[in-house]
């Protein structure tokens, strides 16, 4: 099995493929996180941070496919990591052996590759289902000095098997920590800020993916230290490939308004943290207008 990921160490856009895939397994990685393994009808080379639109094939397909970051892939297989939050993820959790899926991917702009971080060590900060793109980056590109942080609610919430010694773990409540593993109390961004390895003058690059409050905290941390910061935004998506404008995020713009809508699925999902107009994010972008369509 050729590992395709190695073929795209830096991001040079690879064509997006529409393919079918067969369900292989749902593997529980933590109380809330399930790893989905599928067998691909066609290879889907991708860069860390890219995602795929996933759906059931045939008559039970959902009206919209769902975006999921790619956790890992070979020519024949692909894995995702997800949490059941609604109709689509419930359908994934209910898949049976051999059931067919559709995959459209890879999509979106990935995290910068190792050659694009100016030789600086990378700090990866993940929460919950924000893990896949960062996990993929560290697995493919990680060098000594690169450091991962993962935050969860408690020990049950941590996908211990996926997180090797390169990952530092924090939890809100220190319960259910397996023997031989460590987890620090507190929010992951605070924990990273206090972490010994991140003190000192060494400039770093931060990659983050997770809930918006976490991303904001990470962006502030990076800004305070003058570090470059890239965040992956999990905005609602309709198409995933720029067709519908259903996934906009407010970004800085030189034009009159000072901001504009960026299309998360094609301009992102990875953005430089200082591009994002955090003050407008998650709020009505314009006074409620009188038009629809």
């Amino acid at each position: 099995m050729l590992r395709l990921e190695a073929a795209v160490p830096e991001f040079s856009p690879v064509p997006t493929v529409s393919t079918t895939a067969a369900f292989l397994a749902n593997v529980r990685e933590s109380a809330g996180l399930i790893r989905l393994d599928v067998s691909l009808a066609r290879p889907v080379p991708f860069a860390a941070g890219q995602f795929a639109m996933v759906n059931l094939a045939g008559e039970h397909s959902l009206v919209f496919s769902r975006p999921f970051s790619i956790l890992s892939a070979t020519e024949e297989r692909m894995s995702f990591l997800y949490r059941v939050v609604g109709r689509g993820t419930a359908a994934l959790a209910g898949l049976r052996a051999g059931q067919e899926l559709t995959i459209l991917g890879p999509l979106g702009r990935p995290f910068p590759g190792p050659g694009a971080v100016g030789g600086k060590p990378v700090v990866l900060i993940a929460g919950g289902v924000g893990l896949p793109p960062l996990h993929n980056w560290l697995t493919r590109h990680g060098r000594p000095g690169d450091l991962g942080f993962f935050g969860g609610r408690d020990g049950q919430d941590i996908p211990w098997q996926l997180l090797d010694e390169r990952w530092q773990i924090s939890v809100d409540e220190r319960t259910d920590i397996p023997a031989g593993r460590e987890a620090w109390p507190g929010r992951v961004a605070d924990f990273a800020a206090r972490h010994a390895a991140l003190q000192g003058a060494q400039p770093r690059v931060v990659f983050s993916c997770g809930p918006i409050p976490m991303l904001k905290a990470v962006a502030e941390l990076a800004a305070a230290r003058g570090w470059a910061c890239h965040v992956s935004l999990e905005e609602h998506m309709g198409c995933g490939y720029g067709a519908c404008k259903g996934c906009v995020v407010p970004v800085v713009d030189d034009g009159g308004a000072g901001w504009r809508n960026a299309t998360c699925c094609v301009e992102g999902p990875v953005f430089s943290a200082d591009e994002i107009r955090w003050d407008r994010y998650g709020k009505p972008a314009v006074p409620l207008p009188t038009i629809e369509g």
Partner: protein
Amino acid sequence: MALQLPAWWKIDPTAPFELGPRRLPGRIWTASGCFAYGLTGHDFAAPGFASPYEGLGAVVTKTVTPAPRAGNPMPRLAETACGAINSIGLENVGFDRFCDEVLPELERRGVPTVASLAATRPAEFGTMAARLHRVAGGFAHWHGVEVNLSCPNVAEGGHDFGRDPATVAECVAAARAELPDRALLAKLTPNITDITELSGAAINAGADAVSAINTVLGLEVDLTTGQPVLPRRFGGYSGPAVLPIALAKVDEIVQKTGGKVVGVGGIATATDALKFFALGAVAVQVGTAQMRDPFAAARIARELRPG
């Protein structure tokens, strides 16, 4: 798996056909707002397809307005059991950039294009059509204009812009006057008591066909909060759920109005498209299904080729 084409179906939907003064390359189109400006996905591949544009008769581009629009707040989409509700709010790059950047690029790439336009005053449709004619009159792949008359509340004069037959006629006539050699379509709202009043007005004012339907007003509730999912409460309902509604409107128009109809609403498969053709539609548009699968329209075009 492959569709067994019914005996009455004899048309090759990827063969050119006449629509008013223009010959269009085929009868399977993508619907406005569901395939952006026709510049996305060109490098996508699927088994048996070199691109999602294979076999398409036209891409109806995202509706553009005289000035750019930022659109509505997020979230803009809600999925229901068998459809989608959108409240994009006509986010678009504006007519200037459409003329300067989008249309020339579509021409360069050879994308068969129908330009969707919206405005708040009937005369603006004339102004825009005239400029299109100046900019793109020599283009081989720009085939026509679809005037989007189906957005509630755009009129300066009140909320019945696209629901008022007289206004519909004015908009169509204004565009027609400046479009000597391109197809002109009027896209109608289904949110009206009698759509044939609109279709009659549009055809009489010179439209070569009407496109029916735009989205149906719909609402989804977030049960946790008890509030509508979309910030503006309602949105435009589309997808498989609206297919029977679109079929009913198309049938009404065909039966009561002399004039051609382009069917749109809920088409996801070749079977769905055939239902519109059975009722007399001259072409069809694929909307929501195109968002799920960029090859949806291309697959339908291929499946409907007889023999």
